[in-house]
Every structure is written in structure tokens, then in C-alpha cells.
């Protein structure tokens, strides 16, 4: 425990100062003085904080499985009183003889001080690595021994046991690399490049075949249309369009139309423009030729005359209807003047008949008065005619009756008839007047139209009965003109159509051949560039294939390295692990521990076996024949063996809670083992196990070591420190 043996040339832990870190809200200073130490106390009083502070101070991080789903900053802050802005800081002091190494870290900086040399950040890290000779993984694997790291060895799953063994041996980095160094993506990429080239080659071949097929069809059509091989070129195209242009201009001139000359055509691309110009020229000749203009004028004249003819027929018919109606009235009722005369006579007769009626009425009144007089006289005779009164009265009564019933009625009836006759005559006279007016109006319209026709046909005047004939003659004459002009226009149209046919033959026969040849040539030119790109693609594929092969070789080297390094570690740790196995487990039947690598094709497995005196026939897989407690002790034996055989410059082992699952006998054995180990190096033990603490006292460990008794926790641990005699 004195530390004055051969290993005193290495660094030992002198002290740890912790501020605002995990289980320590304020500050805790723990002195070790290079001695072994015992950190004892119940769970949750801050013992593990010391180990975490050591890791963080030295390397500023933790193994990946420590920090899962939590940021480093949140993990560091005090569990009880984390406040914003609080900064964790720790200082660890090591000593080597008189020389001191101070390692300090807070949230922002890292420093290493050796003697008067003070370095920070990257330079401090380099100095740390140089002085301590270990990295974080080695620290966790070979200095800070935590039983949680051997739990995997107890699991049934071979993969989990292999993984636990990898962690113990520091081979987890190799496994992690093997996990990500897959060759398949590179091999797939190589195939993808090759296939992409193949696919595109096939597509390009198909496209070329299609273009060639289209060209052959075009050539066949061109020959059918009368082109010879000598025509199937751009000179042929230019000559054909030039000839077409000359012919077209000549025809246009003949028909009095000036057209734009066709543009020269010596490429397939220009053919479309020339063709459009030709079509435009055709249309202008069709519309603008002399004959066409004259024909249009003649057709307009016919239409005008036919319209006049139609109007003449209509107005004539209306005029004739009116005349007929007037003649019919005259035939039935006489002339209009006679009718007026008859109406005057009838009206005169009515006046007379009314006078006669008035006289008759007066006479009847006179007779009635005479009779009343006679009736009033007593004389039996008339004094005038001497007729008897009685006869006279009878005669008067008879005359009065005749007057009343016959004479006056006859006169009234004659008067009424005459009035009806007058009414009838007046109605006829009105109709006659209207017929007269209509006839006059129609005649007037006819006369106006006649004047219009005369003006249209020319000449001084045309009699009404000649109009129809003259119109027909004019229409016939115009028809003859139209027929004559139509024949000329048809001849022009035929000539134009022949030119159009000629142009169509060039456009549909010759141009497609030239277009097809251009397309094939352009495609072949592009194909040459694509072939160069394909070569690049194949080279890229080859590059990917090579990458896959290189990755495979890296994997192979990794596996070989793993097998070699693991075998070496196990070879170095084996004898010590064997010795510790016997001391800690004391299995009566299986007294020999055998841990070795088993190289496989694509991985490295581990054998974790026990046997009787090393006889292979008795070898059994440890987890099948040992209890969990024995298995834990066996794992700890391997753990210690590996830790002791790992080379670095820290002369200390920090062992956290080594007695989980162990029975009393094993705890006692463990106490003896760590006491024995503390004779050669600084051992720092953390435990909550009172039995184990008692065994450590009995074995002499506790008496020679610094004892930090964590008695309780309230934001900070309460620590009672007992220094060994040499330090007091």
C-alpha cells in the first residue's frame, strides 16, 4: 500500500475536487494521497459521482452507452439544484514521486499542468495522452472497473456475450466498424452503373433502329414518287424548289399577279418555310388573278339582275292583282261615277218618300178629327154631302184604317229599302275607291322599278311589257360571260394544282429523306459522345467494384486484427484470470477457466469455458454449469486479469461495487484479492456492502487506505474521511 514498489514510476491519484457536478451541488474535495481508498456508503449518496467526475475531467465525455437520450450538459448538472448558467468543474491531481499532474475541466476549457508547464485545450489533450498513455476507452475498460460491464457475459444470447467480451477486450470499436463497413452498397452501385450503361445502350440501339427504319421508308416513298438516288440530296432539293419557283412566277405573271420569289431551299429545315411561302403564293394567285376578278364581277352582275327580275315579277303580280280587283267591282256594280249618281238618286227618293209619309199622316189625322166631329154632332146627315152620319162614320173609319194599316206602312217600307240601298251603294263606293288607290300605288311602284331596271340595263327607256324579256336577255348574256371566265379560272386552278402537286411531291417525298438522313447523322454524332460517357460510367462502376473489394479487404484485416488483439489480451490476462477464478469461485469440479477466441469466416466468437484440470473432455460452457454468482465472480476475475495486463501510465484501479451477486464466502475472497492487489497498485474501492467493508477491514485493506465514508446526502454528500497513519 505504501506505493514504493516498481510501479511507483506511474501516476497515482492524489485528490479530486468536484464542483456543481451530478450528485454534488456545490463543492467536494476528496484526498487520496496516492494511497488506496475505500469509498463506502449507502446507495444514492454520491459515490459514483467520483468515478464519473474522473472520466469527465480526463476526457470530457462518456462511453456512448452512458448518455442515451440526454445531452451531456444536462447530464453533468447537479441532480438536485440544476440552475441556469451553472457550470460544472472538476480538478483531478495525480502524482508521480514529487511531480504533480493537475488536470482541470469546466464547461468551456480543459487544462493540464505539469510542474510549471500549463497547457490548455488541444495541446493539453495531447500532453494528457502522452503522460497517461491511455484513451477514454482504455480508462473505462482497464482503470474504472464497473460490474455493469461484465453483465453481458451472463446472458444466454451468444451475440450479447460476444458483445460483452468485445467491450472487455476493447474490440467493440472493431465490431462497430465491421457493422458499418458493408460492401453491398458499393457492389450495388457498381452493378447500377453497369446496368445503367446496358440499359441506355439498348435504348439507343432501339432509337437508331427506329430512325433507320423511318429513313428507309422515306427513301422508298421518294423513289415511288419518281425521285432518283441522284436527287436525294440537298442539291436536288434546292434545284427542285428553284424550278418550282420559276414555274410559279411565270404562271402568276400570266394571270396578272406579282408574287414574292420563293426563298432558296438548300436544307431540310428551310423546306418548311419555303413550303409555307409557296402555299401563301398559291392563295394570292387564286384570289388575285384577272380572270378571277372578272368572273367575280360577272357573277355579281348576274346576281344583281336576277334580284331585279325577282322584284319585277313580284311588283307586277301585285299591280295586276289590284287592277283585277278594281275591274271586278266595276263589272259587278258599274263604274265608280255611276255608283255616286245612283247614291244621289236614292237619297233624293228618300226625301220624297219621307214627305209622302208626312202627308199621309196629316191626312189620317184629318180624317180622325172629322170622325170625332161627326160623332159629336146630333145631325143624322152630313151638312155638306148630306150622307147619313152613320154611313159617313163607317166610311171615315174605313178610310182611317186603310191609311193606318196599308198606305202609311207601304210608304215606310219603301223609305227603309231606299235607305238600305244607299248604305250598300256607299260601301261599294268605298271599296271601289280603295281598289283605285291600291292600283294606283302598285302602278307607281312598278314605274319606279322599271326606271331602276332601265338604268341597270342601259338605254333611254323600256316599255313595261318589254322589261321581262330584256332582263332575261341580260342575265343570259352575263351567264355566258361567267361560263367563259369560269373555264379560264378552272384552267388556272388546274395549273396551280399541278404546281401544288409538284411541291407536295418534293415536301413529302424528298424532304423526309433528307430529314431522316440528318436525324440519323445527328444521332450517330451524339452516340459517339454518349459512348465516351458510357466509358466514364463503366469506369465509375469499376471504381465502385474496387471500393467494394477494398472494403472487403479492410473487413478481412479488421477481423484478423480483432482475432490477434483479442487473443493477445486473453493470453496476457489468462493466467491471472485463472488464478483469480480459483480464488474467487472455488468451484470443486471445474477448477480451470479457459477463455479464447474462435475465428469464424466473417466474425470472431469467444469460448468462455470451465473444465476439470484443463481436460478438454470435461470442458463446459461456463454459463451452463456455474451459478449467476459464480459466473459474476468469474467475470470479475477476467476483468481484473485484463485490467492488470493492460499497459498504460496510471498506477491505479477504481473498482465500483465488485460484490453484486456474491455470497459471503466470495465477498471474503474478493476482499482478500483486492487487498493483495493493493500491495502493488493504488486500488480505489466503492461499495455499499457492509459485509464486504468488514472483510476489507479484516484483510487489512481498510486500515492502510484512505476511507471516505459517505454518511448521507442533502444536495451534497456528507463525507467522513479517515486517513491512514502515514498521512496523518
Amino acid at each position, binding site marked *: 500500500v505504501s506505493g514504493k514498489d516498481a510501479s511507483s514510476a506511474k501516476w497515482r491519484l492524489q485528490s479530486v475536487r468536484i464542483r456543481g457536478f451530478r450528485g454534488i451541488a456545490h463543492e467536494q474535495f476528496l484526498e487520496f494521497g496516492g494511497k488506496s481508498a475505500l469509498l463506502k456508503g449507502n446507495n444514492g449518496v454520491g459515490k459514483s459521482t467520483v468515478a464519473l467526475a474522473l472520466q469527465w475531467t480526463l476526457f470530457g465525455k462518456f462511453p*456512448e452507452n452512458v448518455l442515451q437520450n440526454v445531452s451531456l450538459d444536462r447530464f453533468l448538472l447537479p441532480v438536485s439544484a440544476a440552475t441556469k448558467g451553472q457550470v460544472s468543474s472538476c480538478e483531478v491531481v495525480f502524482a508521480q514521486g514529487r511531480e504533480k499532474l493537475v488536470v482541470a475541466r469546466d464547461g468551456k476549457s480543459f487544462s493540464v499542468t505539469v510542474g510549471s508547464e500549463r497547457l490548455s485545450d488541444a495541446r493539453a489533450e495531447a500532453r494528457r495522452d502522452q503522460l497517461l498513455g491511455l*484513451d477514454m*476507452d*482504455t480508462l473505462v475498460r482497464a482503470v474504472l472497473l464497473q460490474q455493469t460491464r461484465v453483465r453481458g457475459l451472463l446472458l444466454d444470447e451468444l451475440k450479447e456475450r460476444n458483445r460483452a467480451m468485445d467491450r472487455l477486450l*476493447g474490440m467493440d*470499436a*472493431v465490431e*462497430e*466498424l465491421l*457493422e*458499418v*463497413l*458493408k460492401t453491398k*452498397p*458499393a457492389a450495388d*452501385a457498381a452493378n*447500377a*452503373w453497369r446496368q*445503367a*450503361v446496358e440499359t*441506355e445502350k439498348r*435504348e439507343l440501339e432501339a432509337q437508331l433502329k427506329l430512325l433507320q427504319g423511318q429513313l428507309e421508308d422515306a427513301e422508298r416513298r421518294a423513289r415511288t414518287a419518281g425521285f432518283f438516288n441522284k436527287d436525294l440530296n440537298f442539291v436536288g432539293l434546292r434545284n427542285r424548289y428553284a424550278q418550282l419557283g420559276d414555274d410559279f412566277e411565270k404562271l402568276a405573271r400570266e394571270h396578272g399577279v406579282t408574287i414574292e420569289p420563293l426563298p432558296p431551299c438548300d436544307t431540310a429545315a428551310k423546306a418548311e418555310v419555303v413550303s409555307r411561302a409557296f402555299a401563301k403564293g398559291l392563295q394570292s394567285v387564286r384570289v388575285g388573278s384577272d380572270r378571277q376578278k372578272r368572273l367575280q364581277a360577272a357573277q355579281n352582275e348576274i346576281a344583281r339582275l336576277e334580284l331585279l327580275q325577282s322584284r319585277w315579277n313580284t311588283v307586277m303580280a301585285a299591280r295586276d292583282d289590284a287592277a283585277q280587283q278594281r275591274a271586278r267591282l266595276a263589272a259587278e256594280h258599274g263604274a265608280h261615277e255611276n255608283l255616286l249618281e245612283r247614291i244621289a238618286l236614292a237619297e233624293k227618293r228618300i226625301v220624297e218618300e219621307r214627305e209622302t209619309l208626312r202627308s199621309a199622316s196629316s191626312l189620317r189625322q184629318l180624317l180622325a178629327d172629322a170622325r170625332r166631329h161627326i160623332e159629336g154632332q146630333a145631325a143624322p146627315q152630313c151638312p155638306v154631302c148630306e150622307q147619313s152620319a152613320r154611313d159617313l162614320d163607317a166610311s171615315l173609319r174605313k178610310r182611317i184604317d186603310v191609311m193606318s194599316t196599308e198606305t202609311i206602312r207601304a210608304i215606310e217600307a219603301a223609305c227603309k229599302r231606299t235607305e238600305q240601298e244607299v248604305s250598300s251603294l256607299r260601301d261599294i263606293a268605298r271599296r271601289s275607291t280603295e281598289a283605285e288607290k291600291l292600283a294606283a300605288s302598285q302602278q307607281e311602284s312598278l314605274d319606279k322599278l322599271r326606271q331602276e331596271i332601265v338604268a341597270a340595263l342601259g338605254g333611254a327607256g323600256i316599255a313595261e311589257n318589254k322589261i321581262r324579256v330584256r332582263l332575261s336577255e341580260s342575265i343570259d348574256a352575263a351567264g355566258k360571260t361567267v361560263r367563259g371566265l369560269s373555264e379560264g379560272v378552272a384552267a388556272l386552278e388546274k395549273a396551280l394544282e399541278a404546281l401544288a402537286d409538284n411541291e407536295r411531291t418534293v415536301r413529302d417525298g424528298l424532304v423526309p429523306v433528307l430529314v431522316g438522313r440528318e436525324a440519323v447523322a445527328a444521332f450517330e454524332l*451524339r452516340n459517339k*459522345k*454518349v459512348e465516351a*460517357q*458510357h466509358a466514364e*460510367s463503366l469506369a*465509375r462502376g469499376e471504381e*465502385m467494384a*474496387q*471500393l467494394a473489394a*477494398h*472494403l472487403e*479487404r*479492410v473487413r*478481412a*484485416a*479488421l477481423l*484478423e*486484427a*480483432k482475432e*490477434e*488483439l483479442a487473443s493477445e489480451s486473453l493470453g496476457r490476462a489468462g493466467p491471472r484470470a485463472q488464478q483469480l477464478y480459483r480464488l474467487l469461485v472455488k468451484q470443486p469440479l471445474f477448477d480451470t477457466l479457459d477463455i479464447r477466441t474462435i475465428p469464424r469466416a466473417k466474425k470472431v466468437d469467444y469460448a468462455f469455458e470451465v473444465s476439470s484440470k484443463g481436460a478438454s473432455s470435461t470442458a463446459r460452457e461456463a454459463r451452463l454449469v456455474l451459478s449467476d454468482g459464480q459466473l459474476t465472480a468469474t467475470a470479475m476475475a477476467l476483468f481484473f486479469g485484463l485490467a492488470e495486463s493492460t499497459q498504460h501510465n496510471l498506477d491505479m484501479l477504481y473498482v465500483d461495487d465488485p460484490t453484486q451477486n456474491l455470497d459471503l464466502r466470495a465477498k471474503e475472497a474478493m476482499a482478500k484479492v483486492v487487498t493483495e492487489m493493493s500491495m502493488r497498485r493504488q486500488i480505489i474501492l466503492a461499495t455499499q456492502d457492509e459485509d464486504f467493508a468488514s472483510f476489507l477491514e479484516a484483510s487489512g485493506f481498510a486500515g492502510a487506505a484512505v476511507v471516505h465514508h459517505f454518511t448521507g446526502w442533502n444536495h451534497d454528500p456528507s463525507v467522513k474521511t479517515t486517513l491512514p497513519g502515514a498521512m496523518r
Partner: protein
Amino acid sequence: MNAIDETVVSKIRAQREHAEVLELWKKLWAAYGSGRAAAVEQVLTGLVKLPSGPGLTTMQGRRR
């Protein structure tokens, strides 16, 4: 950790025509040192290139 690198390097050196393999390993190991498996995957992602698009005529190669 250095032991792993040294051993792997010696194993690769023992292979024939190992210059490119060794270079690849150094690149991967450096990445592992700076960012563990994630960094290695990133390096591999950068190395593995796949053709892009249906045709190769405009192909630049894309990363996985």
C-alpha cells in the same frame, strides 16, 4: 485504440497491392476517431456514387 489501428495496418500491409486499401483504411479510421460509426458512414456515403436519372447522357452521379 491505437493497437487496433496498428494491427489493421500491419494486416493490410501483409496483403498484396495494398496502397489503396491502406489509404481507404486511414480515411475510415480517421473518421471513426472523429465521429465514430456515424462519421464512417458519412465517409462511405461520400464514396459510394450511383447513377442518377433514367439516362446516362446527363449523368453526373449521385451520392447515396
